[in-house]
């Protein structure tokens, strides 16, 4: 029998997480290349609706892994449920999106089964009989091809944006859906989660901005943010920042771009002194044009920049403000 790839999609608060489709696209590509079977699973309480939604895509089968104890999410319950499922439904490869929730339980699940997870992958390669997964290392400065040296199931998580969710293939007919009720004993769940909440009303909606000027560590001091602000004003754009700037309190948290902040896709993203750690890049790589100014010629931000300036932002920005004003005045 062919080996099985299981894609575990993510649902939260009654919604299928968008990145689930990306992981499904990855699963379809892998299944086609390896000649393996593709199945999907959704974990939770009352998740049959999601299972039916997935069943419209090109998959052999969809499982709804059900227990009242799976809502709200806890790592203890999710690991108990998925371990039980994988023991009775062996899979060669288990794929999930690299979300905060998956990060929270996958290492525990793999360890509970004596296995390992290759996390935050951006692709895969088939090399002869060997399957390797590509992931970024050293904050994106280097990449690594990583293989499993242990038995199945192999756990792999894919980075947000690694595959195109809109490229997921529809099935010729709806795949069968099976509900698997799992038994989670009393006392298994130790954490008591409260309601999910948002800190404060987000004052700035950067997702609507057409032009964003973002600052990173290279700005050095809080008072220097002023020149970035002046550039943003000259361009008629919004000011944003990478995480360390908001952590330091130099700009409010609602100006943060990246996995823990906002995800944006403006016409222009001008990155000043931002090295381009993965967590930042996932929040802005959809920008139509990226201009990066950084002292470090090896900064990962240059990998995705359309226009790059290797140099000191304090030298470049003041004349740039003047040039922008000149062009605007002339037009």
């Amino acid at each position, binding site marked *: 029998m062919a080996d099985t790839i299981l894609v575990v999609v993510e649902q939260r608060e009654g919604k299928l997480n968008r990145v689930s489709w990306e992981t499904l696209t990855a699963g379809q590509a892998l299944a086609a290349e390896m000649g393996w079977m593709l199945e999907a699973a959704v974990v939770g309480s009352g998740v049959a609706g999601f299972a039916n939604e997935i069943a419209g895509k090109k998959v052999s089968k969809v499982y709804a892994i059900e227990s009242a104890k799976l809502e709200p999410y806890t790592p203890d319950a999710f690991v108990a449920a998925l371990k039980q499922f994988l023991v009775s439904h062996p899979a060669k490869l288990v794929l999930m999106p690299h979300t905060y929730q998956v990060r929270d339980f996958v290492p525990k699940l793999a360890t509970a089964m004596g296995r390992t997870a*290759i996390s935050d992958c951006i692709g895969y390669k088939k090399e002869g009989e060997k399957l390797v997964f590509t992931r970024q290392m050293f*904050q994106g400065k280097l990449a690594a091809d990583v293989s499993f040296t242990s038995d199945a199931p192999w756990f792999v998580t894919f980075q947000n944006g690694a595959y195109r969710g809109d490229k997921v293939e529809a099935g010729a007919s709806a795949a069968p859906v099976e509900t698997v009720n799992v038994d989670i004993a009393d006392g298994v769940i130790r954490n008591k989660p409260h309601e*999910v909440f948002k800190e404060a009303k987000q004052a700035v909606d950067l997702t609507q901005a057409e032009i964003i000027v973002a600052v990173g560590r290279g700005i050095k001091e809080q008072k220097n943010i002023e020149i970035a602000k002046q550039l943003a004003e000259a361009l008629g754009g919004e000011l944003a920042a990478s995480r*360390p700037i908001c*952590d330091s309190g130099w700009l409010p948290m609602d100006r943060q771009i990246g996995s*823990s902040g906002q995800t944006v896709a403006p016409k222009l993203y001008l990155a000043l002194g931002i090295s381009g750690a993965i967590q930042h890049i996932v929040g802005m790589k959809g920008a139509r044009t990226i201009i990066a100014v950084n002292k470090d010629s090896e900064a990962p931000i240059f990998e995705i920049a359309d226009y790059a300036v290797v140099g000191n932002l304090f030298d470049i920005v003041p004349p740039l403000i003047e040039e922008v004003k000149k062009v605007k005045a002339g037009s």
Partner: protein
Amino acid sequence: MKILVCMKQVPQKDAPLKLNETGTWIREDVSYEVNEPDAYALEEALRQKEKHGGEVVVITSGPARAQQVLREALAKGADRAIHLEDNAFVGLDAFNTARAFAAAIKDDQFDLIFTGLQSDDYGYAQTGVVLAELLGWPHATIIMQIEKNESGIRVKRELEAGYFQFVDMPLPAVLTIQSGINKLRYATLIGIKQAKNKPLRKVALAEVQSAVSANLQKIERLYVPQKTKNTEFLEGPAGEVAKKLAEKLRNEVRVL
């Protein structure tokens, strides 16, 4: 509370990295620093100790150079340190690193174990959660706040896109700490002096060898990522570059 903080030494953020001859790791001759989220984990442990009393112990694995991370932690106020000292620890996967740590602390009884949420080198974001499972403890990840209460602790988890969640959990527990949870302190001169007399236990590979196995995953090769974009580098004196950029903004990007 007795708190263990797992710390890692990683290449400095701006350090240019060179591949080794086999293309499986970087050359060691770079500058190192403490993994940033681990610095926040240490700071949080020190603050918890200041509030509730107890002890802060720091642990790391790696060659002799990694001791610097422990020395800095002791200077900032940690009480003692454990150094799993061997070059071989650098290449261990998260599963085996956690197993080595678990073996090294088997005679200690901690209430809490902190790690940074991920390392700046591998970036797997796994060691803390794996360690929790090996110890049979509950865990919570990407933590932004910790309050002790009668039954254990209440932590604030960061979720995606600006969402948060409070979680009540019993002790002992493992928490992975997010950067920015607190404001980092500097070591004082007195702290640096005192650190010299604080206990630092060295654990040789042989002592924990029986706990670790062959890696479950293997880095086949490490390389400079291929560029997917055609990047145009603008060069010249600052004024000229600024002029070129403004032209691009007007004619190519069309935002002016």
